[in-house]
């Protein structure tokens, strides 16, 4: 099999790796770069567990070949915040019990991040519509929506201040 050199920019770091053209971005991220925050849930682009941010777009990385992401800026949950400084969304998901098993959480937060970048002051309905590409089996979404609304409100207050 022919592996091609691929350069991926993930969370501000450049990774040189080799992959076949057919290798899906989610597999290269998880197995080669050991970025395991994004998960595989359905493989048919319905569940959104594999959501990453690519050049300012939320993308289901199970339905994109890694080679197609070459040269793009990729952000995963790991790039949003870490132990030293959590992202407001990470804080709010904790505070409002917006997660249970945690499997959908990385994709959900990554998607919510892009939603708030595009629409900093969403209505509850806009949050529900904006997160509708991410399935959660545990929470019933109510607390996820609450967490995203709370994050929006806090981000807006910070900006005003």
């Amino acid at each position, binding site marked *: 099999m022919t592996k091609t050199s691929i350069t991926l920019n993930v969370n501000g770091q450049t990774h040189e790796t080799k992959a076949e*053209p057919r290798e899906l971005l989610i597999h290269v991220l998880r197995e080669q770069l050991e970025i395991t925050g994004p998960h595989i849930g359905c493989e048919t682009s*319905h569940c959104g567990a594999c*959501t990453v941010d690519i050049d300012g777009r939320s993308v289901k990385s199970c*339905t994109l*070949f890694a080679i197609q992401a070459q040269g793009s800026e990729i952000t995963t949950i790991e790039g949003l915040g870490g132990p030293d400084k959590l992202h407001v969304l990470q804080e709010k998901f904790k505070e409002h019990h917006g997660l249970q098993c945690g499997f959908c959480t990385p994709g959900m937060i990554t*998607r919510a991040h892009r939603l708030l970048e595009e629409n900093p002051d969403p209505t509850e309905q806009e949050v529900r*519509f904006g*997160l509708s*590409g991410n399935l959660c089996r545990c929470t019933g979404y109510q607390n996820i929506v609450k967490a995203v609304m709370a994050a929006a409100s806090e981000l807006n207050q910070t900006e005003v201040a």
Partner: protein
Amino acid sequence: MIPGRFDYHQPESLAAAVTLLSELGDDARVIAGGHSLIPMMKLRLAMPEHLIDLKAIGDLKHITVADGVVSIGAMTTQAELIGSAALADAAPIVKETALQIADPQIRYQGTIGGNVANGDPGNDMPALMQCLDASFTLSGPNGQREVRAREFYEAAYFTTRDDLEILTRVTFAAHGGGYAYEKQKRKIGDYATAAAAVLLSKGADGACSSASIAMTNLADTPIYCEEASSAMIGAGIDATSIETAVKSCLECIEPVDDNRGPAEFKKHAAGMVLKRAIDSAWSRA
């Protein structure tokens, strides 16, 4: 769900893409947003040996409105359609439709070109394009040609596009008047149980001055309801004329049984969706 092997090509010009496709022939597939093709490849229902990715071809991504004509590059994503102020002004029905396609992530990736070229009866844009009487630009080894959306679809996944041609652009006239795209689906991310695109204009006399109706996922191609559309012109829009139009449209469709329900139900749902769409379009006319 692992796709088979292929070689990946990313030509930087349309000419290069057309040449490459001509050289590789049947072994190659063109990929745009990939949200139809990649799942098929993961199921190994599609196993192309070569993928020609159009993403690097800059002139395939544009939305222009000039002299009342809208031109959209094939690689323009649904999200870009939704975000375009010029398009919202010239043809608001496009945004209304795009918002009902799949989910946010897929709309960032899915393109108008992929949606119309694929020939999937479940896709929403083909019926919309027929409703708008859009034209598709195809580029192939023998040059460029235009095909009307109303003449493009032959059967499920079969279109008049030659395998060596690439769909590069859709063009249509900006629409005035009232518009609606109504879609019944089981949930976000689903294809239509039934959907209808409707454009209606109101003349100075209060009667319908132009009408165009097309339907999604109710046959193996999108359905442009020519008779119903022309019958509405010149008449007032009321319960009776809507009833007549719906009846006429329902004669054009041939839904099939699937998990969304039996054909009988879909016919009924189609009538409801159509009524909603006509009501909504007329109220905006």
